[in-house]
């Protein structure tokens, strides 16, 4: 009760609990993560390999995805962003790099962190590999991977002109 204006104020916390289902197609992907394996799905129509398998369907062909395909663990940076701006809830020391990584054998890229190198050294075509957290911290999540780091292999030609990155 506010004494100043006599207006009664109530706090009414409300919540809703859902039984969220990952669906059969994403389930093999999530089970793979529990096991340290990167499992994507192949579209029976266009043969593209989706990692992660989105909602279990190929958005291009409108077909339910088919076979499991183990991808990675290494991949190539297709694009990236150097984060210099602090924001609420930030957990990682600035500056850091968020990158799109095309895992070997996959046809769509996924986003993850690049660490263990200078932000200025990160480039399109750079080869990277996952660094897994301690197994005791694993769940059905891509967060099992703490970050990706450079492998030191030669860059992959991504069809980008020199200097464009």
């Amino acid at each position, binding site marked *: 009760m506010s004494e100043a204006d006599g207006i009664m104020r109530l706090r009414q916390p409300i919540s*809703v609990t*859902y039984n969220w289902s990952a669906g059969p197609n994403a389930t093999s992907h999530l089970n793979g993560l529990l096991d340290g394996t990167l499992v994507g799905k192949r579209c029976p129509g266009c043969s593209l390999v989706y990692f992660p398998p989105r*909602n279990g369907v190929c958005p291009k062909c409108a077909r339910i995805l088919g076979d499991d395909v183990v991808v990675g663990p290494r991949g190539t940076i297709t694009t990236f962003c150097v984060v210099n701006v602090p924001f609420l809830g930030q957990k990682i020391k600035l500056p850091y790099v968020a990158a799109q990584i095309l895992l070997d054998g996959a046809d769509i890229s996924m986003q993850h962190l690049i660490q263990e190198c200078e932000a200025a050294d990160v480039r399109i075509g750079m080869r990277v590999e996952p660094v897994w957290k301690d197994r005791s911290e694993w769940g059905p999540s891509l967060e099992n991977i703490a970050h990706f780091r450079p492998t030191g292999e030669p860059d992959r030609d991504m069809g980008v002109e020199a200097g464009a990155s």
Partner: protein
Amino acid sequence: MARRDVAIVATAQRPNEVGSTLTSVELILPVINDVIAKVGIERQKIGFWCHGSCDYMSGQPFSFVAAVDAIGAWPPIVESHVEGDGALALYEAWVKIQTGECDVALVFSNGKTTSGPIDRILNLQADPYMVTPLWPGFDSLAALQARACLDAGVLSEADMAEVAARSYRDALNNPIAYAKENVTAEQLLARPYTTAPLRAHDCGVPVDGANAIILAAGDAARSLAERPAWIRGIDHRIDTQRLGARSMTESSSAAIAAAKAGVGDDRIDIAELHAPYTHQEILLRRAMNLGEGTHVNPSGGALVSNPAMAAGLARFAEAAESVFSGSADRVLAHCTSGPMLQQNLVCVMEGE
């Protein structure tokens, strides 16, 4: 501008179930592919896609965007989404065709109703202001409405049980209906109240479902279906959201929508009414002046399977199918939305 003749030319529905482990996208995709296969049309000929669903039901903002994955949106398409029942998306598609921007539209809807407490979820979705902090669920509000009707002598508990018994028996002939039982009103009246004066049979059974419909104009419709279900009138009316300012014993918005859609111009063979509660079917029949000659909800209606956000479009699918098969010539499809019949969409369709 002259109104274009628009018809439903194909429908597809998933069998209703409880506790589906599919994602919404996995739920939708097969029905979309089904309805397209039924008319054998190329995807590129579909000029407009319109989706009805509710993000609160998946607990994920903008989850409807994922549904575009089920469409096969390549090359790019023209699409829209309605945060509501698929029947309202059908209305949008009908308007789109009226503008002349397209001749063929595909409408679809989905509801994973059993993945959360739907009574609470719909209240949070539809009413963040008017009855806070009481948060009355749809069942509670419907029970208040039923009580008002009983007290006013508008209907009796036996009338309500008759509606349920007929629906449960009719559902025996509907392969995709969820609840079905060869039961009499007397047997139902012996069962306990769940939210007095409502018993379990008075409340639509929440299920997971998805459906899709193809609309087409003029010659396009004639080329896609042997006997299209031509939309002769369609109208959407809304009562005030102030529950205390509404009459609980009648549905004025349903009456206006029915009159505007031309329900009374001729006999109605079959009326598929979206009545999630037994007493609401009685109020709707009365508001639309539906008499003995009209078979109400031969599918079993939303009482036997109520996939939220898809149950209204399911009524359109069922009504249109009865025209396709020739079992009816002039049919009515209805969709409600919000608590206590707040919104009412009424459509009259005819075969040629």
